[in-house]
């Protein structure tokens, strides 16, 4: 089942940032969002993940198939690496975190408190969470922030393996991930025309 966005208009803080966005993402494919800071990549990803509503247009094939990873990793500093990962596996109704630990080179860190990890190690743990969700569409917002080149390669390998199993990935990033088969989608041409903020939100 494809993930499709049709004629999507998304807003940040009530101000439309992107409009007329349409794309389709087939199983086994990856789509990389590009665009300058503030272009609306994060807003678009949050809309696709269902965390905020679109002003116009619709997203199909999302919902319960999405595994979202944002700018922060959702880690509990007072839980160990294994406990953090195990928690997310159980929330998503899965068990078995070993494959994810191996894929992101976290086996040696399994019993360390997440609060004592370096920024790059935390990010790796945050990305390992995607593997234990068992969801088929990964929606990733700047997944490679604070990763070194080796870890980026680990991440690219995990994404490739995920695509190989029929999953798909939608990523916003500024760097070359080393996944040449990924399609690139530049959001810059879809910048919304300047207009007043939409004031029908209950809370702003």
């Amino acid at each position: 089942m494809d993930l499709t966005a049709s004629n999507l208009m998304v807003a940040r803080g009530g101000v439309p940032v992107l409009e007329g966005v349409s794309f389709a993402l087939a199983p086994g494919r990856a789509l990389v969002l590009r665009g300058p800071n503030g272009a609306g990549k994060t807003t678009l990803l949050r809309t696709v993940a269902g965390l905020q509503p679109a002003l116009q247009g619709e997203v199909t094939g999302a919902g319960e198939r999405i595994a979202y990873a944002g700018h922060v990793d959702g880690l509990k500093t007072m839980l160990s690496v294994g406990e953090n990962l195990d928690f997310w596996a159980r929330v998503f109704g899965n068990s078995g975190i070993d494959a994810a630990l191996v894929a992101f080179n976290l086996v040696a860190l399994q019993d360390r408190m997440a609060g004592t990890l370096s920024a790059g190690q935390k990010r790796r743990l945050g990305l390992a969470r995607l593997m234990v969700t068992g969801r088929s569409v990964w929606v990733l917002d700047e997944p490679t922030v604070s990763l070194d080149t080796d870890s980026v390669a680990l991440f690219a390998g995990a994404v490739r393996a995920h695509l190989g199993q029929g999953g798909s990935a939608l990523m916003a990033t500024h760097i070359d991930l080393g996944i040449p088969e990924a399609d690139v989608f530049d959001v810059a041409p879809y910048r919304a025309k300047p207009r007043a903020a939409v004031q029908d939100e209950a809370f702003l």
Partner: protein
Amino acid sequence: MIALLTRDLRLAVRAGGGFGLGLAFFLIVTVLVPFAVGPQTGLLTQIAPGVLWIGALLACLLSLDRIFALDWEDGSLDLLATAPLPMEGIVSVKALAHWITTGLPLVLAAPLLGVLLNLAGPGYLWLFVSLALGTPALSVIGTFGAALTVGLKRGGLLMSLLVLPLYVPTLIFGAEVARRGAEGLAVQTPLLMLAGISFGVTALLPFASAAVLRINLR
């Protein structure tokens, strides 16, 4: 759901989790009141149920902003929102975890602290019963307040102002049960009202909390 509950309980008892915060506050209030009021045992007996209830209520209030704020800051709330759990279930589990870590210790400690305030003999049972019935309402209402103010930095003041009026009915009927119990009067009417409030908010408020949480996550 159970995974979320065990995680929250585990976090609460680890360092920095704030497990003893409410209990310590409750202890301090009930220890200090006799010093402030003076050694008049008759007066203490008279005010004991009310003071214990106010202490429990404020102790509950103290830890409310931790319910969602920490999960919001580290991004887990966004991730939970995309998880297969219904939002109503998430807020109910959060309220339950708050009650177990804050309300339940208060319920168990209150009869012991009643001794410090010279609580009348029959009052111990009714104080325990009224707190056991009333503190779940405090947690559920507080979860609603926490959900309303989740995105705000230092939202604690606003949350206190929003939540305190909602706490008033619980306080009135809860303290009334304890007072009447201590004086040996019939407790049925306020007890039924207190139970009604508790069950009512537990049944209805999670839906409201889930709705405001969804809006706040946008």
